[in-house]
């Protein structure tokens, strides 16, 4: 043990502290699991925080039915291997109405499946605290959010009612009905996450690595044809191109980047040399100005 901790060691210790604090002061905690790289890191940290016990909460995947096939495989394998309870919630209204990004648009699709679905799941299981993997460097409205973020009984976020956070003393108290969203990775950057995955050999979905995949080019984005639900427009012919994903969401809404980076170091190298930001490939962030902030106030993560 050297005398000065590295920045990753300090970030790790801080995240573990946050998780233990959150669990100690809540009745029914849950960890939101989106199957992405941040979720993978968060889950790994949770295992460390409560070792040798298993994390004392289930994982919750708010499913849209439109994730990549490989994501579902990875999700089920991860939960089974680690022996952690996995809850999957699909908004029954969306299932019934067949909500999808094509006929209903990305905004409705996201709101109905994810925002409303999340609120349903939290209410249904009476969870009073939910971990999320958001980072402050990711998006402007996230940069403004506290580590412990209070939500009203209607799941609304009020940026003006945020509590000051001093030292490592977090005020987790809530009135009945109010819930907390807790972001243990607040102070991590994208590079920290990749570096930590590298260092700790944390498994991630293979879609993050470059490989030949069938894609169509649509509105300047490369959309992967993950199954036959993707309607092809006239003249669109899926092409096999070497691509990978910087962030993962619903497959029709996640733009791929051309890449042959098939190792973790190559991926990190590419990330460091890129000149565009991480969320650039996400269709939902571009719906309207300040859209993420609005979504968050309405209860999106």
């Amino acid at each position, binding site marked *: *043990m050297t005398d000065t*901790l590295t920045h990753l060691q300090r970030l790790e*210790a801080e995240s573990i502290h946050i998780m*233990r604090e959150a669990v100690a002061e809540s009745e029914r905690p849950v960890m939101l699991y989106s199957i992405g790289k941040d979720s993978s890191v968060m889950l790994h940290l949770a295992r*460390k925080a409560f070792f040798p016990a298993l994390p004392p909460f289930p994982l919750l995947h708010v499913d849209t039915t439109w994730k990549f096939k490989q994501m579902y495989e990875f999700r089920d394998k991860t939960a089974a291997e680690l022996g952690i309870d996995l809850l999957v919630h699909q908004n029954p209204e969306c299932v019934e109405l067949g909500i999808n990004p094509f006929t209903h648009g990305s905004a409705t699709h996201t709101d109905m499946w994810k925002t409303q679905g999340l609120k349903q799941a939290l209410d249904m299981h009476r969870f009073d605290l939910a971990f999320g993997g958001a980072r*402050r460097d990711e998006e402007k409205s996230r940069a403004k959010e506290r580590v412990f973020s209070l939500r009203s009984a209607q799941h609304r976020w009020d940026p003006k009612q945020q509590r*000051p956070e001093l*030292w490592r003393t977090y005020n987790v108290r809530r*009135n009945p009905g109010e819930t907390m969203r807790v972001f243990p990775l607040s102070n991590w950057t994208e590079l920290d996450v990749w570096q930590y995955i590298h260092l700790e050999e944390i498994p991630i979905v293979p879609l993050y690595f470059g490989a030949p995949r069938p894609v169509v080019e649509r509105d300047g984005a490369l959309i992967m044809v993950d199954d036959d639900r993707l309607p092809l427009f006239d003249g669109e012919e899926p092409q096999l191109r070497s691509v990978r994903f910087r962030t993962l969401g619903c497959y029709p809404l996640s733009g791929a980047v051309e890449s042959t980076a098939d190792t973790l170091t190559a991926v990190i190298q590419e990330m460091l040399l890129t000149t565009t930001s991480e969320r650039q490939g996400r269709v939902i962030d571009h719906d309207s100005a300040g859209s993420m902030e609005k979504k968050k106030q309405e209860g999106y993560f």
Partner: protein
Amino acid sequence: MTVPSRLIAEDIESYLNVHQHKSLLRFITCGSVDDGKSTLIGRLLYESHLVFEDHLEALEADSKTGTQGGELDFALLVDGLAAEREQGITIDVAYRFFSTEKRKFIVADTPGHEQYTRNMVTGASTAEAAVILIDARKGVLTQTRRHSYLVSLLGIGKIVVAVNKLDLVGYSRDVFDTIEAEYRDFAAQIGLTDIVCIPMSALRGDNITEPSQNTPWYHGPTLLGYLETVPVGQHAKDGPFRMPVQWVNRPGHDFRGFSGVVVGGRVRPGDRVRVVPSGQQSTVVRVVTMDDDLDEAVAEQSVTLTLADEIDVSRGDVLCAADSPAGSADQFEAHVVWMAENEMMPGRPYLLKLGARTVPVSLSRPKYRVDVNTLEHAAATTLALNEIGVCNLNLDRPIAFDPYAENRDMGGFVLIDRLTNATVGAGMLHFALRRSQNVHWQAIDVDKAAQAELKGHRPCVVWFTGLSGAGKSSIANLVEKRLHALGAHTTLLDGDNVRHGLNKDLGFTEADRVENIRRVGEVSRLMVNAGLVVLVSFISPFRSERRMARDMVDEGEFVEVFVDTPLDVAEQRDVKGLYRKARRGELTNFTGIDSPYEAPENPEIRIDTTVTVPEAAAEEIVNRLRDLGVLR
């Protein structure tokens, strides 16, 4: 191509290896926008290659029309992000991230205005170093003093004084020397000693990363040079071992570990530890992590310890070095920074969270308030938003602590409102008050149970609350007559009567009304201990204080009676003529007129006086007391 990007392109493994072994420095920047803070932060982001190409192109275009005559205006980088503030959201502190080849940085970027004292304090609470900007043309200003005081108050030891905009005074050594001398003189008065003064121009890049040729007379470090090498994590590491227990880990019968962050010193297997406040001792067996057991854990690490003995340890206890344990006390003196719109109420019960322990606390009237501009001590009866004062704290049980100056984690606390659960203040413990060690609870043999036995009924407080003129006293009076006739031993405390004696020194300000109720609550408690049924007839307009009075007696001994009379009805009755006076402006702080009344949410008994006459109300209350088992 710069050096790091060449390394990324050619030898990513080496780059990652370097990155992995970087240390982390959290620092705070202070100074108003005019001092060049945005430019400085923009420059630091730029120098650490965190600016994406598209942003840089935009910057170049913007700068052409900007105030800097076509040179890159780095302030635009930060101000561009800060435009989010225009959405009307108060961001009290923004955290920005950058890294160099040696170190990673988290900057707490706090607005400099006076009304943001709480933001400065929030940002400074996690910082190990502070960069205080001074405009070379203006020298040491009130604002410089205020920021330095706050930085010193929060215990940040490492100070960089960035004498900025030196280009605008011709890189004058005299100007720099004068400012440095004046600053050091001031800093010594507030106990700041570890200071580096750097002459710079954030705009032109002088002494930011490279020594400037414009200041050949300066031989100290550059700003980044200093930030990259200033020692981190030393503060807590040198002290004795401390670990507040956050979580007791019991996956099964064969493992019982205590989890937490080491916030002071270091710990190894075999070390003797003492649990504070209980005082029990044991020996550390293992330092458990998922990767492997450790030979040693140091400050800042999150670990799980197992002990040799089955002693009682729970969340909130602190594991300490056995030979130099933390103190344990229930009364303290502390600096308090008030962070809420509602002013601090001396005597009102709040919650104090220190480490993993949350306990009820009340604060004394401030001994003094600090004027953050002049640093003078002023008399104060309360603390308003952004004010700092020194108060005594009274906890309802002892907790483990160290003075803040010795260990931030063991002496820094937040204050929480008991009703809204908002964080309303923060503070730093100085020392335990000696009286908390010298005044002990005297055990009395003839206790409440013995008294009740003799009286033939259970003691309790029947607390009548409602507007002036609601009918509290009339009903209370009837209730007492009935109880007396039933052979119960009673007493009646009436608001007006108590103000003639015990509380005649109190006025009607919010703070005085809190104290009024506190004293009456204490008297009620003593009388409950004497076995009486205590009838209290007080407007008692605030929920917090009624809650405080309720908490002073045991569960089931407090019966809240809400004498519910609408304001217009009470005002019509106006038995004492007070409403008329208040309406004429001859009475201030009158409940219902210019002072709020917070109706009970869940009273044990609610009397609607618009439909219930006092006799029926009294009957109902006596019946309820019978149901509650007060009367036998």
